[in-house]
């Protein structure tokens, strides 16, 4: 019994020291990390919706159109003339870990841009999704994410049908396409509700 107590105590002390060390490091790095995340989000928002717009966070629960896709946040895009679109932050399961991305949609029901915020896809394969110099359409110099620009949100978004897939990365291509499709559905419903019955 004594031995068990002793072992527990030693393990507890070492655990406490390591916890303390981590807390100390986190205290210093935490604010820097949060500031960076906020900046990444701002940059991301203006990338998926280029132009002179304001972004306003929406506190609203959305119905999930696809059970695997999560909606983590929504930002209304405003110009001087009023609301012009919606940016959704969605999470879709990738091949290694969830892919976090921003999907911007205009009020005319077209995609304005897609940006990956966080992903752990395989380097050289799935990671090419966020590489602006990797062209899925070499002739038109179109990167994987750029191909979504201007597409109608009512499209099917199925890789190898109306979306060009990344060679060797079907899961990644599929995950992103699914995220865009789900975001499109949510946006469509949102604007429909806002505009009211015709």
């Amino acid at each position, binding site marked *: 019994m004594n031995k068990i107590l002793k072992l527990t105590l030693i393990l507890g002390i070492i*655990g406490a020291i*390591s916890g303390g*060390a981590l807390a100390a490091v986190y205290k210093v*790095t935490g604010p820097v990390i949060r500031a960076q995340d906020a900046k990444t989000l701002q940059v991301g928002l203006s990338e998926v919706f280029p132009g002179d717009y304001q972004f306003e966070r929406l506190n609203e629960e959305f119905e999930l159109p696809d059970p695997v896709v999560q909606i983590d946040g929504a930002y209304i895009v405003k110009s001087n003339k009023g609301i012009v679109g919606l940016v959704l932050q969605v999470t879709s399961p990738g091949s290694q870990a969830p892919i976090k991305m921003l999907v911007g949609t205009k009020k005319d029901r077209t995609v304005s841009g897609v940006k990956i915020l966080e992903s752990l896809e395989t380097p050289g394969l799935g990671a090419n999704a966020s590489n602006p110099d990797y062209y899925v359409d070499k002739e038109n110099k179109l990167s994987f994410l750029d191909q979504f620009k201007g597409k109608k949100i009512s499209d099917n978004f199925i890789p190898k049908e109306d979306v060009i897939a990344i060679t060797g990365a079907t899961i990644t291509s599929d995950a992103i396409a699914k995220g865009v499709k789900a975001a499109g559905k949510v946006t469509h419903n949102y604007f429909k509700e806002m505009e009211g019955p015709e």
Partner: protein
Amino acid sequence: MKKYWRIVWNGITPSNPILILAIGLCSVVAVTNSVQNALLMTFVFSFVLIFSEIIISLLRKVIPGDIRVPIFVLVIATFTTIATLLSRAYFNSIYEAIKLYIFLVVVNCIIIGRAEAFSYQNSIVDSIFDGIGMSIGYGWVIIAMAAVREVFGNGTIAGFRVFPASYSPALVMILPPAGFLILGVLVGWLEFTLRKKKVKK
């Protein structure tokens, strides 16, 4: 001094963690598809290995044998998390590139293997040199493998194009099977040279 050099040299060839001890191979195959990834992985790996070896060597007299493995894991996980937090806060672009491998460091058998086989029985200074030697031994192998895989699989080396853009890359080189293939060739080559040396003696 000669003793320390022997410890370092031990990690580079006679007990090379990848080619001779053949441990931690999964992460090796995963990270060697580009030179940049291999360099970053070496960097994180060295940081975690050297600091974990120092702490474990420091605590070796108070760690009871019965619970040594959970303590090794605790120490390694702590340093890995510190590396994650620091790189996220101050070197975000590096973090973006290595985050996938940071998780592989925690479960890297080389680190836990060296903690068990070396620092648990040796002094701090010896452990530091062991950490340096093992890091070099790990680094040169993965960088060499990455160079071969990147050149043939992508036509570039560390991001610089070596083959003309018209070269159509052999995708298999980027995929895991080619990683094992090249690993096998390297193991064979090192075994061959070491044995030839022994015969000469």
